[in-house]
């Protein structure tokens, strides 16, 4: 039971060969490139969703920030599609791997910070000291703000990893409990099954929300630096 609980988070392999790269690339197959002026239903719906999301997400940005539009939209599409595909039974979810999420969070965060230091050096440095800070608190606050800046990519990655991993573990546990209770008490098994259904609905929402939160935070870090 204990070994089976974490088996779904192990890197997948087929006949001894790692297939994690194929799994990471798979969501791109679900978003075909529009090739006509008026496309089929799938592409039209996807285009509508992408336009809706991009309008809302890029509204706060100036011209420099909006050059990141493709990056931010790719990010939210990748994370949401990966998270949703991970809810299929027996599938592997790449976003449960901390290495993967750190690989997304650190370059994006570093990109925003370097952009800020390159184009607005004074404002980026001044950002570490809130306006109106009393004199005795200045050194402490500079240290605190520096630490909070360095924590940002870790928080981004760990938040996504923990949320998705916890959801998958809960589904696994409650599903196992439902199966175990069928022979013991049908009523309790039924109640546990209802809880499982509600949890699965919650996990669908969490999958989309976590993708949105990740992208929104990267967008906010970019907004602070442009």
């Amino acid at each position: 039971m204990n070994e089976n609980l974490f088996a779904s988070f192990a890197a997948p392999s087929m006949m001894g060969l790692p297939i994690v790269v194929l799994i990471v690339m798979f969501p791109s197959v679900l978003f075909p490139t529009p090739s006509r002026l008026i496309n089929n239903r799938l592409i039209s719906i996807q285009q509508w969703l992408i336009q809706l999301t991009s309008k809302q997400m890029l509204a706060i940005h100036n011209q420099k920030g909006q050059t990141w539009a493709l990056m931010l939209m790719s990010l939210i599409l990748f994370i949401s599609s990966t998270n949703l595909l991970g809810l299929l039974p027996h599938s592997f979810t790449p976003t449960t791997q901390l290495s993967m999420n750190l690989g997304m969070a650190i370059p994006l965060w570093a990109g925003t910070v370097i952009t800020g230091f390159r184009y607005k050096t004074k404002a980026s440095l001044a950002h570490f000291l809130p306006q109106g800070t009393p004199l005795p608190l200045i050194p402490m606050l500079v240290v605190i703000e520096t630490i909070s800046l360095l924590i940002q990519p870790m928080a981004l990655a760990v938040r996504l990893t923990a949320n998705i991993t916890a959801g998958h573990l809960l589904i696994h546990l409650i599903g196992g409990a439902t199966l175990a209770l069928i022979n013991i008490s049908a009523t309790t098994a039924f109640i546990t099954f209802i809880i499982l259904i509600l949890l699965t609905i919650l996990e669908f929402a969490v999958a989309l929300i976590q993708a949105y939160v990740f992208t929104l935070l990267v967008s906010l870090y970019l907004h602070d630096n442009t």
Partner: protein
Amino acid sequence: MAGPETDAQFHFTGIRKYFNSYTLTGRMNCVLATRGGIALLLYFKLGSKKTPAVKAT
């Protein structure tokens, strides 16, 4: 929001002109001074560790 356009309302003199928590330049200089101080502290602390104490014979 702080910025070069709001800095004009502050009139500091002396050292407060360059080190304060209101203007953009003042805040930047405070941040650089704090970090520079910490860097110097670490440099001298780590530097003194490298020099071994002379043993009495």
